[in-house]
Protein backbone atom coordinates (compact mmCIF):
# COMPACT_ATOMS: atom_id res chain seq x y z
CA UNK A 1 0.00 0.00 0.00
CA UNK A 2 1.32 3.41 -1.04
CA UNK A 3 0.35 5.19 2.19
CA UNK A 4 2.01 2.61 4.40
CA UNK A 5 5.21 2.81 2.35
CA UNK A 6 5.27 6.60 2.54
CA UNK A 7 5.00 6.48 6.32
CA UNK A 8 7.63 3.76 6.55
CA UNK A 9 10.07 5.96 4.60
CA UNK A 10 9.27 9.04 6.70
CA UNK A 11 11.39 10.67 9.38
CA UNK A 12 10.07 12.83 12.23
CA UNK A 13 11.94 14.64 15.02
CA UNK A 14 10.29 15.38 18.37
CA UNK A 15 11.55 18.01 20.83
CA UNK A 16 10.56 16.92 24.33
CA UNK A 17 9.44 13.53 25.70
CA UNK A 18 6.89 14.69 28.27
CA UNK A 19 3.09 14.61 28.11
CA UNK A 20 2.94 15.59 24.46
CA UNK A 21 6.18 14.10 23.14
CA UNK A 22 5.92 10.63 24.73
CA UNK A 23 2.33 10.17 23.55
CA UNK A 24 3.07 11.54 20.07
CA UNK A 25 6.07 9.21 19.71
CA UNK A 26 3.91 6.21 20.62
CA UNK A 27 1.16 7.24 18.16
CA UNK A 28 3.69 7.76 15.36
CA UNK A 29 5.31 4.39 16.13
CA UNK A 30 1.92 2.65 16.01
CA UNK A 31 1.27 4.43 12.68
CA UNK A 32 4.43 2.89 11.23
CA UNK A 33 6.59 6.00 10.85
CA UNK A 34 9.98 4.63 9.79
CA UNK A 35 12.33 6.89 11.74
CA UNK A 36 11.62 8.81 14.93
CA UNK A 37 14.23 10.96 16.67
CA UNK A 38 13.49 12.47 20.08
CA UNK A 39 15.42 14.83 22.36
CA UNK A 40 14.84 15.22 26.11
CA UNK A 41 17.12 15.69 29.12
CA UNK A 42 14.73 14.80 31.93
CA UNK A 43 14.14 11.71 34.08
CA UNK A 44 10.76 10.11 34.79
CA UNK A 45 9.24 11.47 38.00
CA UNK A 46 6.17 10.24 39.87
CA UNK A 47 4.37 13.53 39.01
CA UNK A 48 4.68 12.69 35.29
CA UNK A 49 2.61 9.51 35.46
CA UNK A 50 -0.75 11.33 35.33
CA UNK A 51 -0.25 12.16 31.64
CA UNK A 52 3.03 10.92 30.22
CA UNK A 53 3.59 7.54 28.56
CA UNK A 54 5.61 6.01 31.41
CA UNK A 55 4.87 3.75 34.35
CA UNK A 56 6.19 3.04 37.87
CA UNK A 57 8.94 0.81 36.50
CA UNK A 58 10.44 3.79 34.63
CA UNK A 59 10.78 6.10 37.65
CA UNK A 60 14.25 7.63 37.90
CA UNK A 61 15.24 6.67 34.36
CA UNK A 62 15.84 9.00 31.45
CA UNK A 63 12.61 9.58 29.51
CA UNK A 64 14.44 8.97 26.22
CA UNK A 65 15.61 5.52 27.33
CA UNK A 66 12.28 4.57 28.90
CA UNK A 67 10.50 5.59 25.71
CA UNK A 68 12.95 3.72 23.46
CA UNK A 69 12.27 0.55 25.44
CA UNK A 70 8.49 0.93 25.04
CA UNK A 71 8.62 1.82 21.33
CA UNK A 72 10.74 -1.25 20.62
CA UNK A 73 8.05 -3.40 22.20
CA UNK A 74 5.16 -1.61 20.44
CA UNK A 75 6.66 -1.60 16.96
CA UNK A 76 10.15 -3.05 16.57
CA UNK A 77 10.33 -2.00 12.91
CA UNK A 78 10.60 1.69 13.90
CA UNK A 79 14.12 3.09 13.81
CA UNK A 80 13.93 5.04 17.08
CA UNK A 81 16.89 7.23 18.02
CA UNK A 82 17.31 9.79 20.77
CA UNK A 83 19.61 12.28 22.43
CA UNK A 84 19.53 12.91 26.16
CA UNK A 85 20.42 16.61 26.25
CA UNK A 86 18.69 19.87 27.07
CA UNK A 87 17.71 21.78 23.93
CA UNK A 88 19.07 25.33 24.06
CA UNK A 89 19.58 28.21 21.67
CA UNK A 90 23.16 26.96 21.19
CA UNK A 91 22.34 23.41 20.04
CA UNK A 92 18.79 23.61 18.64
CA UNK A 93 19.79 24.07 14.99
CA UNK A 94 22.51 21.39 15.12
CA UNK A 95 20.08 18.89 16.71
CA UNK A 96 17.21 19.36 14.27
CA UNK A 97 18.66 20.79 11.03
CA UNK A 98 18.38 17.58 9.01
CA UNK A 99 14.68 17.02 9.77
CA UNK A 100 11.91 18.28 7.47
CA UNK A 101 9.22 17.82 10.13
CA UNK A 102 9.86 18.77 13.73
CA UNK A 103 7.30 18.30 16.47
CA UNK A 104 7.57 20.85 19.28
CA UNK A 105 6.53 19.13 22.52
CA UNK A 106 8.11 21.20 25.32
CA UNK A 107 6.19 22.37 28.37
CA UNK A 108 7.93 25.73 28.90
CA UNK A 109 6.55 28.47 26.61
CA UNK A 110 9.91 30.24 26.46
CA UNK A 111 11.51 27.09 25.03
CA UNK A 112 8.59 26.60 22.64
CA UNK A 113 9.14 30.10 21.24
CA UNK A 114 12.94 29.65 21.15
CA UNK A 115 12.69 26.43 19.15
CA UNK A 116 10.08 27.75 16.73
CA UNK A 117 11.88 31.04 16.01
CA UNK A 118 15.29 29.42 15.53
CA UNK A 119 14.19 26.51 13.35
CA UNK A 120 11.88 28.61 11.17
CA UNK A 121 14.71 31.08 10.50
CA UNK A 122 17.71 28.77 10.28
CA UNK A 123 16.30 25.55 8.80
CA UNK A 124 13.66 24.58 6.25
CA UNK A 125 11.68 22.48 8.75
CA UNK A 126 7.93 22.60 9.13
CA UNK A 127 7.01 22.65 12.83
CA UNK A 128 3.95 21.15 14.51
CA UNK A 129 3.65 22.73 17.94
CA UNK A 130 1.37 22.39 20.97
CA UNK A 131 0.01 25.33 22.97
CA UNK A 132 -2.91 25.33 25.40
CA UNK A 133 -4.01 21.92 26.74
CA UNK A 134 -4.04 22.37 30.52
CA UNK A 135 -7.16 22.11 32.69
CA UNK A 136 -10.45 20.37 31.95
CA UNK A 137 -12.41 22.85 29.81
CA UNK A 138 -14.10 21.44 26.71
CA UNK A 139 -11.94 19.15 24.64
CA UNK A 140 -13.70 20.62 21.59
CA UNK A 141 -11.71 23.82 22.04
CA UNK A 142 -8.50 22.05 21.09
CA UNK A 143 -7.88 22.43 17.36
CA UNK A 144 -5.12 22.43 14.76
CA UNK A 145 -4.27 25.84 13.32
CA UNK A 146 -1.94 26.79 10.49
CA UNK A 147 -0.45 29.93 12.00
CA UNK A 148 2.51 30.60 9.72
CA UNK A 149 3.75 29.27 6.38
CA UNK A 150 5.75 26.52 8.16
CA UNK A 151 4.12 26.49 11.61
CA UNK A 152 1.07 24.54 12.77
CA UNK A 153 -0.14 25.03 16.35
CA UNK A 154 -2.41 22.53 18.09
CA UNK A 155 -4.26 23.36 21.31
CA UNK A 156 -6.79 25.87 22.59
CA UNK A 157 -3.98 28.49 22.51
CA UNK A 158 -4.77 29.80 26.02
CA UNK A 159 -5.06 27.18 28.79
CA UNK A 160 -1.77 27.67 30.64
CA UNK A 161 -0.28 25.41 33.33
CA UNK A 162 0.33 28.59 35.34
CA UNK A 163 -3.41 28.84 36.09
CA UNK A 164 -4.65 25.27 35.48
CA UNK A 165 -3.90 21.72 36.55
CA UNK A 166 -2.67 19.48 33.77
CA UNK A 167 -4.28 16.12 33.14
CA UNK A 168 -4.13 13.31 30.68
CA UNK A 169 -7.29 13.79 28.55
CA UNK A 170 -6.62 17.25 27.11
CA UNK A 171 -2.89 16.51 26.79
CA UNK A 172 -3.79 13.38 24.82
CA UNK A 173 -6.27 15.30 22.65
CA UNK A 174 -3.57 17.84 21.82
CA UNK A 175 -0.98 15.09 21.23
CA UNK A 176 -3.48 13.39 18.90
CA UNK A 177 -3.92 16.62 16.94
CA UNK A 178 -0.15 16.99 16.58
CA UNK A 179 0.42 13.36 15.57
CA UNK A 180 -2.42 13.55 13.05
CA UNK A 181 -1.10 16.79 11.53
CA UNK A 182 2.34 15.19 11.19
CA UNK A 183 0.83 12.18 9.40
CA UNK A 184 -1.17 14.53 7.16
CA UNK A 185 2.00 16.44 6.20
CA UNK A 186 3.85 13.20 5.50
CA UNK A 187 1.03 12.12 3.21
CA UNK A 188 1.00 15.44 1.33
CA UNK A 189 -1.92 17.19 3.06
CA UNK A 190 -1.05 20.69 4.27
CA UNK A 191 -4.40 21.96 5.53
CA UNK A 192 -4.91 21.83 9.32
Amino acid sequence: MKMKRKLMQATVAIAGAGGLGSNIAVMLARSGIGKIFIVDFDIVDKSNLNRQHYSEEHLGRYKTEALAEQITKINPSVNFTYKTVKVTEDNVVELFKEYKIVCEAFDNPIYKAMLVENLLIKTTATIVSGSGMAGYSSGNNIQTYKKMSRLYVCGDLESDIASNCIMSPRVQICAGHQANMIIRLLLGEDTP
Partner: protein
Amino acid sequence: MIYNGKQINIEENVTLAQFIQDNNYDIKKIAVELNLNIIPKFEYKNVILKDSDKLEVVSFVGGG
Protein backbone atom coordinates in the same frame (compact mmCIF):
# COMPACT_ATOMS: atom_id res chain seq x y z
CA MET B 1 -2.36 46.11 8.33
CA ILE B 2 -3.52 42.52 8.67
CA TYR B 3 -2.76 41.37 12.20
CA ASN B 4 -3.51 37.76 13.19
CA GLY B 5 -5.93 37.49 10.29
CA LYS B 6 -7.83 40.74 10.96
CA GLN B 7 -7.58 44.17 9.34
CA ILE B 8 -6.49 46.81 11.87
CA ASN B 9 -5.32 50.43 11.75
CA ILE B 10 -1.82 51.19 12.94
CA GLU B 11 -0.05 54.36 13.96
CA GLU B 12 2.47 55.80 11.55
CA ASN B 13 6.11 54.80 12.04
CA VAL B 14 5.38 52.34 14.82
CA THR B 15 8.09 49.70 15.25
CA LEU B 16 7.40 46.00 15.66
CA ALA B 17 9.00 46.23 19.13
CA GLN B 18 6.55 48.98 20.14
CA PHE B 19 3.57 47.10 18.67
CA ILE B 20 4.52 43.94 20.59
CA GLN B 21 4.84 45.92 23.82
CA ASP B 22 1.57 47.85 23.27
CA ASN B 23 -0.28 44.57 22.78
CA ASN B 24 1.09 43.20 26.08
CA TYR B 25 2.98 40.27 24.64
CA ASP B 26 5.70 38.59 26.67
CA ILE B 27 8.50 38.84 24.10
CA LYS B 28 10.20 35.65 25.33
CA LYS B 29 7.09 33.56 24.58
CA ILE B 30 6.31 34.64 21.03
CA ALA B 31 7.27 33.99 17.42
CA VAL B 32 6.56 36.60 14.74
CA GLU B 33 6.00 36.26 11.01
CA LEU B 34 5.85 39.43 8.93
CA ASN B 35 4.91 39.09 5.25
CA LEU B 36 5.86 35.39 5.41
CA ASN B 37 9.30 36.09 6.92
CA ILE B 38 10.11 35.09 10.50
CA ILE B 39 11.55 38.06 12.36
CA PRO B 40 14.22 37.32 15.00
CA LYS B 41 13.69 39.09 18.34
CA PHE B 42 16.78 41.28 17.99
CA GLU B 43 15.29 42.80 14.82
CA TYR B 44 11.96 43.91 16.32
CA LYS B 45 13.23 47.40 17.12
CA ASN B 46 14.44 47.94 13.53
CA VAL B 47 11.20 46.99 11.79
CA ILE B 48 8.72 49.78 10.97
CA LEU B 49 5.19 48.45 10.39
CA LYS B 50 3.28 49.51 7.26
CA ASP B 51 -0.41 49.43 6.28
CA SER B 52 0.34 46.85 3.61
CA ASP B 53 1.94 44.42 6.11
CA LYS B 54 0.62 41.04 7.11
CA LEU B 55 1.67 40.27 10.68
CA GLU B 56 1.16 37.05 12.60
CA VAL B 57 2.15 36.82 16.27
CA VAL B 58 1.99 33.41 17.95
CA SER B 59 2.13 33.51 21.74
CA PHE B 60 2.84 30.21 23.48
CA VAL B 61 1.37 29.10 26.80
CA GLY B 62 2.87 26.52 29.15
CA GLY B 63 2.04 22.83 29.37
CA GLY B 64 2.98 19.69 27.55
